[in-house]
Each structure stands twice: as C-alpha cells, then as structure tokens.
C-alpha cells in the first residue's frame, strides 16, 4: 500500500514527503554507526519527511536504559534519543525477537517505542519509499 505523495504546505513549500526508514542494527558503542545514524536522523528532521526508526538485532541496545560510558571515554548519547520527540520523530519500532534474544523487555528502553514481530516489521518495511540500514 502506498499513499499518494502528500504535499507540505505548512512551510509554504511544495516538497514531496517520502516515507524514510532508518534501520539500526548495531550496538551503540564500539563502532560509530549508531551515533552517525542518529545525527543523520536529526539533520533529516529539518526536511519534514515521514521518518521511521527501527531498532533490530544488536541495535536494540542503543535504546537500553542506564548506559555508563565514562569507562570507555565516549560521550553517552542515550539521552539524545529522548530529544527525538522534540524533532517530531515519534515513530520508533523495535523488533520483538531481538529483545527476547537479548533478555530485554520494552521496560528496559529509554523511550516509548512500538514493539513489532518480524512479520509486522517486514510489512512496515514494505511500505517505505527509502530504507537506510546501518
């Protein structure tokens, strides 16, 4: 199912709004992927697109509460996910199986999310115009 391209009239523009999905699959520290995706999402928020964030595989750790990063000398960017709401990015989805495999539950996460089964996630992905995975 695809919506017709909606137009954005609020800012006086006529830009096409596409459904974007950013898929986070890696643990938050150790590689730069999680932070880079987060920065890309924050920048893309300026373009008023329909943004969806997915956390699957080790990516679910990105939302884990209570991260302590002082020991590895990295900035703790967990709380930045809480800022997404202010950027009007509120469509966050987490893969149920990935949580289960890691002994995590929705209550362990730092922001409100929608937990989806693999089948539901696949269906949602099918509805996107653009998917970026990291």
């Amino acid at each position, binding site marked *: 199912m695809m919506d017709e391209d909606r137009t954005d009239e609020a800012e006086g523009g006529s830009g096409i709004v596409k459904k974007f999905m950013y898929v986070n699959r890696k643990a938050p520290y150790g590689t730069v992927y999680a932070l880079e995706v987060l*920065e890309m999402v924050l920048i893309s928020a300026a373009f008023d697109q329909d943004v969806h964030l997915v956390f699957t595989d080790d990516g679910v750790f990105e939302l884990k509460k209570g991260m302590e990063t002082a020991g590895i000398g990295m*900035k703790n960017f967990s709380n930045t996910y*809480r800022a997404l709401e202010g950027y009007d990015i509120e469509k966050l989805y987490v893969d149920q199986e990935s949580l289960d495999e890691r002994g995590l539950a929705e209550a362990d996460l730092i922001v409100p999310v929608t937990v989806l089964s693999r089948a539901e996630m696949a269906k949602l992905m099918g509805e996107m115009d653009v998917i970026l995975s990291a």
Partner: protein
Amino acid sequence: MAYQANGKTVETDEEGYLVNINEWSEEVAGEIAKAEQIAMSPEHWEVVNFLREYYSEYQIAPAIRVLTKAISKKLGAEKGSNKYLYELFPYGPAKQACKIAGLPKPTGCV
C-alpha cells in the same frame, strides 16, 4: 583560537566553539559574547541557560526549530519566536547562543 578568562586560557575550534564544554564558566561566556559583540542582558542569559539545560538533558545542541518550540513551552510563546531570538542573537540564535553557552555547533547547522 582561544579566550582568556580568570587568568586561564580556554581553547576553541576554528569557528570559536569551545573544545571542552567543561571549561565553560560565566566569565568565559562573557568573553565569547564580547567577541561576538553581544552585550549580555538577563534575556540573553535566559536563552544561554536554557541551552545549557537542554544540552545537559539531551547531550546535543538543538536545531533552531526545536529550540523555539522548547522555549515557547517553557518561557512562553513570545520568547519562543525566531524574531525574539534573532533580536537577541543577530547572527543566529542556534549558532551564536550555543557558542556563548559553550556548546558544540548544533547538529545540521552549516
């Protein structure tokens, strides 16, 4: 580039943003403001302090759109407008106010 405050040298990057946010103090802010040719009033401090609180909560400097929305919520719609903020910080509230607040340049701000 660097600022002098309280007999100490505070390092900045080539655009004048503090390298280490922990070196910020009100005196440092005063020096940065002077370099930006801004006379700090209570209204300026209100925005600078707001940004510092935002940063300590979310670990990022907000985009201007997010800043105006958050300020509206906390300090009232009149202060949460681009016009009000640009009057205080003519070269861009996100850019100038963040610099004075010792924050890094806002993400997505070129």
